[in-house]
Structure formats: structure tokens, C-alpha cells
């Protein structure tokens, strides 16, 4: 493998493992070694005192503990006929620190030689996980060194091209521009690519059902869905759809409970207030029927009187919510386009949402989850069974 290492910083393993990667055998899906390694990684991370300060690292560690991996494994009946595709190159996003680990986990379970490029931004979460990996490499898991190479490099077309030239699968996380930039690097003819592009999400709440729930616990869940990631995760709801007969009462209660939490927990910078107001004005200017309903900048709410397919172009983060009252659930169809990822629901049957998707053949909606659980870690993402998609299947014709 021809790789210029000048620009590379190795967080785990080294140039030797990277150079030999094309000759490293792929592992079977859910190989014993990969499962053992990840379970050990889970314990190692939880042992680290620094972990306590990071909810995302803790959830990750729980997600890869032994029992959880074994449970996941049972779901793949044909796993004995599957193995890694070869070298998997992961381009992790810059603003979600633990995402790189999520991506590498599926890749290792699939059996790939996993090369992960993490962002230049220094995140303690990345240090904690990489330190744990290195500890394992130095003790019982030296043999896994060649399967997990975590690197950093400054924006470089050449390096991306060199790495892409040897990979069998490329996984890109990030905004549209990142994907466009990385895609400039050509892939070998047999290689496949998975892209996790910019998405948006929506929440649907039945007002009557909500009125029977505990306002604070719903607010806590919704806060995690939104403000916890500056409402800028793909799965963060940008619009709230209300149904049922108690919409006005429910709104008042819902937003008041959220406001209490936001004011005590969220650190809003002045520019975020300007960004939100600017986007609201852009929407208000673009069409009639827009109304500002919030009284300050912590939660900026705007009511829309119609759902259109371009409405989500006016999404914003940091606590900016569009709201719509639907008489019939099917009114949401216009916002279920390609970019729509997660629908989180409260008091709405998840199957009803799936029905709408199926019947109308809309291009979006990959996930329907309960309100408050949009941030959950799962092996199915953006319509892919992640682990499976990173393997190949050997078919035997049994006549």
C-alpha cells in the first residue's frame, strides 16, 4: 500500500498495520475476537474515571457490553455465511465526538479491517476511548491491533485518495459538503460506499395523551432529543406536529415544562439567538401565515399554517421549533421527503406512521421511535442494518 504518513497521526496502531492492511485477513461476522475485544473495551472505558463526566461515552460503553452484543448477534441468522468486506474506511463527523466509535463498532463486528479518521477537533471523549483501545492492544488484544487503526489528518485530498484506493467500503458521516469533498477521491471498482448525510427529524404528539403524562419527564426526554446536541443531530426534531383535541392546553404545558429545563441547563450564546431569529424572519418573509409565538429566545417557536415540502429548508438549531396542528396524521406527508430521518412519537401508534410511509411511498423516514429516545444507539441507522451492510454474504447453491 502506497501511503504517505507525513500527514497522519495514529491514535491507535501505526503505519505498519495500515500498510499491511490489504493483506490482513477479514474476520467472520461477529467473530469471537471482535466480540471479546469490544466487551473488554466496554469494561476498560467504564473503569476510566474521566468517563463519568460524559453521558455519551457511558451510553456507548453500555451499548457494547457483552450481553448487549450477544443479544444483537442472535438477530443475524445467516451470520455464519458472512464476513467482513475487507478494509473499511470511516470518515467520522466533526461535531459528534462518540460517533466514530459507533461506526467502528459495526465495522469490527462485520469483520472489517477498520480505519477510522476522526476529526481534528480535540474531544476528551475521543481520548478516553482511544486510551482504552490502546490499553487492550498492550495486553490481551495485541492481535486486534491490525483491525483497528484510528487516525487523524488535516484536510488532504491526497491522503483521502490514498486511503480510498485500498478500501473495500467507505463510510462517510457529515454534512453534504463533507460528503462532496470526500467523494472527490475515487473508489476501487468493487468498493461500496455508505453515506450518512444531513437529515432532519420531526416529533408527533397526541395532545390528549400528553395531558395524561408527567410534564417534567416528557420535557426531560425532549430536552435530550434536542438541546442536548444543540438540536443539530440528524435525529433532533425540528418541528412538532400536534394532534388530538387538547392542542392548546398541551402546548402551553409542554413548552412551559421545557422552558424550565432549558433555562436551568442550556447555555445559549448571543449568536444562537441571532441565528434563530434570522431563520424565523427568513421563513416569515418567504411566505404568509407564519406567526412568532414564543416570548423570548430560549425556545423560539413559530407556528405554520401549512406543511410544504420546502418547509424544512427553514430548519434551525439551538432551540428553534416550527409547530403545526394536524387534524389528520396524513397531513405530514409533505415533510417526509428524502431528508426526513426520525419521527419520534408520543401517544401515536408507530405503525400508523409506518403505514403512511408505505402507502405513499415517501422517500424519507428511516426510523420511528418514542419521544425522548431519538439519541439511542442502534445497529440500524438511516435505513441500513449497519453490521450486515458492511459484510458480504457467501451463497451456497444447495441442489
Amino acid at each position, binding site marked *: 500500500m502506497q501511503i504517505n504518513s507525513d500527514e497522519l497521526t495514529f491514535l491507535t496502531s501505526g503505519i505498519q498495520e495500515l500498510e499491511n492492511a490489504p493483506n490482513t485477513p477479514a474476520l467472520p461476522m461477529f467473530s469471537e475476537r471482535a466480540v471479546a475485544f469490544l466487551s473488554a473495551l466496554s469494561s476498560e472505558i467504564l473503569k476510566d474515571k474521566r468517563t463519568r463526566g460524559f453521558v455519551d461515552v457511558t451510553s456507548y460503553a453500555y451499548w457494547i457490553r457483552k450481553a448487549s452484543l450477544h443479544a444483537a448477534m442472535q438477530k443475524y441468522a445467516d451470520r455464519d455465511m458472512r464476513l467482513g468486506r475487507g478494509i473499511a474506511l470511516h470518515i467520522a463527523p466533526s461535531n459528534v465526538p462518540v460517533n466514530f466509535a459507533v461506526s467502528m463498532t459495526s465495522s469490527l463486528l462485520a469483520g472489517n479491517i477498520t480505519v477510522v479518521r476522526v476529526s481534528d477537533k480535540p474531544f476528551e471523549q475521543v481520548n478516553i476511548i482511544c486510551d482504552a483501545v490502546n490499553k487492550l492492544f498492550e495486553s490481551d488484544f495485541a492481535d486486534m491491533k491490525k483491525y483497528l487503526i484510528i487516525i487523524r489528518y488535516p484536510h488532504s485530498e491526497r491522503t483521502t485518495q490514498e486511503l480510498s484506493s485500498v478500501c473495500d467500503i467507505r463510510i462517510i458521516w457529515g*454534512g453534504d459538503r463533507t460528503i462532496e469533498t470526500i467523494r472527490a477521491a475515487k473508489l476501487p471498482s468493487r468498493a461500496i460506499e455508505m453515506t450518512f448525510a444531513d437529515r432532519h427529524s420531526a416529533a408527533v404528539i397526541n395532545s390528549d395523551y400528553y395531558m395524561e403524562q408527567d410534564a417534567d419527564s416528557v420535557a426531560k426526554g425532549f430536552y435530550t432529543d434536542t438541546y442536548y446536541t444543540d438540536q443539530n443531530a440528524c435525529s433532533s426534531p425540528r418541528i412538532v406536529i400536534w394532534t388530538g383535541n387538547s392542542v392548546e392546553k398541551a402546548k402551553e404545558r409542554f413548552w412551559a415544562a421545557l422552558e424550565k429545563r432549558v433555562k436551568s441547563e442550556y447555555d445559549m450564546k*448571543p449568536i444562537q439567538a*441571532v441565528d434563530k431569529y434570522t431563520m424565523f424572519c427568513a421563513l416569515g418573509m418567504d411566505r404568509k401565515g407564519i406567526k412568532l409565538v414564543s416570548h423570548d429566545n430560549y425556545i423560539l417557536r413559530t407556528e405554520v399554517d401549512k406543511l410544504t415540502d420546502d418547509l424544512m429548508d427553514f430548519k434551525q438549531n439551538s432551540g428553534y421549533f416550527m409547530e403545526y396542528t394536524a387534524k389528520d396524521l396524513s397531513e405530514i406527508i409533505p415533510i417526509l421527503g428524502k431528508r426526513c430521518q426520525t419521527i419520534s412519537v408520543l401517544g401515536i401508534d408507530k405503525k400508523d406512521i409506518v403505514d403512511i410511509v408505505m402507502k405513499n411511498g415517501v422517500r424519507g423516514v428511516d426510523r420511528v421511535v418514542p419521544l425522548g429516545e431519538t439519541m439511542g444507539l442502534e445497529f440500524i441507522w438511516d435505513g441500513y442494518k449497519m453490521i450486515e451492510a458492511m459484510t458480504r454474504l457467501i451463497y451456497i447453491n444447495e441442489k
Partner: protein
Amino acid sequence: MIEDFYKLEPYALDKEQKNALITKELKELTKFHKEHCTHYANFLEAVGYDAEKVKKASDIPFFPVRLFKDYELLSIDKKDVFKTMTSSGTTGQAVSKIFVDKETAIMQQKVMVKILSNYWGSKRLPLLVIDTPAVLKDRRTFSARGAAILGLNVVARDMLYVLNDDMTLNVEALRTFLEKYKGQRFIIFGFTFLVWQHFYTELLKLDEKFDMSEAFLMTGGGWKKLESEKVSREEFKKRMTETCGIVHFLDHYGMVEQTGCIYAECECGHLHASNYSDVFIRDPKDFSPLGIGERGIIQVVSVLPHSYPGHALLTEDEGMILGEDDCPCGRNGKYIQIFGRLKNAEIRGCSDTYADKFR
């Protein structure tokens, strides 16, 4: 009517008088733009504007300045556009487009003259520009810098660009200019960083010393870049005095979206709002107006924008009101301090952010 303003000295009005006059004018402008710009009318409807409830200038809805980058906003027929002014961001990607008709252009010039004459007299003065003529030639770089120079050109005479196209100092031309206007009052204009980098630093390298003690050094463009190099404005002034004897300084704050209404620096080092404009500091939490000495987001109003709805704007700058009607220099109106652009927030999450478009 704008004529009511012209009769007055630009800093004559006290708080009460100014609020009465400017509020009336701004309400009329709001009505005018509502009737002539659909986008703006929609905006007023979205924020729930009610003209009846406007008691003071700060009650007029403020429009986010960034939207001039996304939308072409004008309240006149496109055929009546006399000139289009643009401001480029630092990267030059997103550009504000401001459409000016003849009437607005004349007002901008007139007001600029009135404000500046209040500082250096009504006589047109020779102008030394610390910039290159290329800043006007190339339409892509015709930015805030270009607009400021053109604006000043109207109040000055015998303009000389003292930087070559490659930004080197044209010492020969400088020498000739200074000899010609020896002992006379003249203006030096440039953006702070250019003055420092391409004028001051170059002058230091020369063997000869120039006397510019009669000059007014007018600067703009903010201090962030110099401050990042650990040069404070006091230091800047001190060095300019030491090197070429400059003692009259006139910094200013302004934006291409409200050209003409500059906030000029008085002898006490304060930036003043004239009768033609006003400034409010908004609390980031809820945009309520803050008092004297409180730091927040700058909102500006100006009575000049007739051809585009830019009379009440929310900027992305941070500032503070230092006082009103009581500056030792004798000028009425608010005087302010600017802290520069609002800091970018590190937004978490995987999506592209709106602000990314402007970086």
C-alpha cells in the same frame, strides 16, 4: 420628512426631541416598505407588527442584517436601481446586496457630509487613501472598503490612493502629496489593519520622516485583527503620533446596509449616533433593550434607507451604550463602544449549520 432633519445640526437633538422626530420618520418608512416590498410585509405580519403600538424607535421591528445576503430586498422598481452596494464577508462567499436609488444615494452622501463636517469643517479636504485603486476595479472586492472610499470621495477632493496594486507603499506619490499640502488640513482614510500593516510598518522602514500633524486619520473596519496581534487602539494611536505626528483620530462604525449614517469618533474617543440614526443594545435572552453600560447585541435604526427595507436592523455585532446627551465633547445623542462581531458558537450535532454557509 428628511428635510426636517437637514435643518438641524447633526448632533443637535436631545433624547426627547430625537425620539419624537426619528420615531415618526421610522414609522413612515415601515409603512412605505410594507407597501412596496412583499417580503418585508410578510416579515411584519410574522412578528405581529402593529403600528398603533409603536411609541418609540425601539418598538419598530428589527430585521436581521444577514438576510440581505440571502434575499434581494428592495422597495423600488428594479429599473430605478441607481447602484448596488455589496459587502463581502471575510471569506467573500456570501454578499449583502443593497439596492440604492438616486434619492437614497443623495441622502447617503448629504448625511455623510453633514456628519463629517461636524468634525473637520465644511470645506472639502484633500484625501489620502491607504488602499489600492484595485479595491474599486474588481467587482468582487468592491466591498465595505470600496463603499467607504466612494462615500468619502464625495466629501473630499484630490483623492490619492497611496498603495500600489500589490499593496506596497507608493512612497513617491506620498511625498508629492505631503509636499503639496504642507501645513494644510487633510484626511487620511483606511481600514485599521491596512493602515497598520501597509502604512505604519512601511513608514518605519524609511529613512525619512513625514509630518502629518495636520491630518485627520479616519479609520474603519474594526479592531479585531489588530487586537489579535496585541495592538490596542491606544497603542495604535500612540505609534501613529510617534511616527508621523498624527494627533487627530476619527474612527468610525458603520455598515453598508446603513451607508451614510456612520457612528464617528469624537475627541473623547466615543462613537456618536447622529440625529439620522440611533442604536439600541438588545439582551440576547429576549431582545429587550438594555440600559447604559450593559453589553449586548447591537440594533441600529436609520432614517435613510428608502429604496430597501434596511431602516431597522439587528446586527451581529456586540456593543454597549456609554452614555446619552452627556459626552464632554458636547454632542447630543448616544455614544457607544463596539466590541466586534458576536463570537461563533460551537454547535454540536451532525448537521450542517446555517452559519456554515457564511464562513
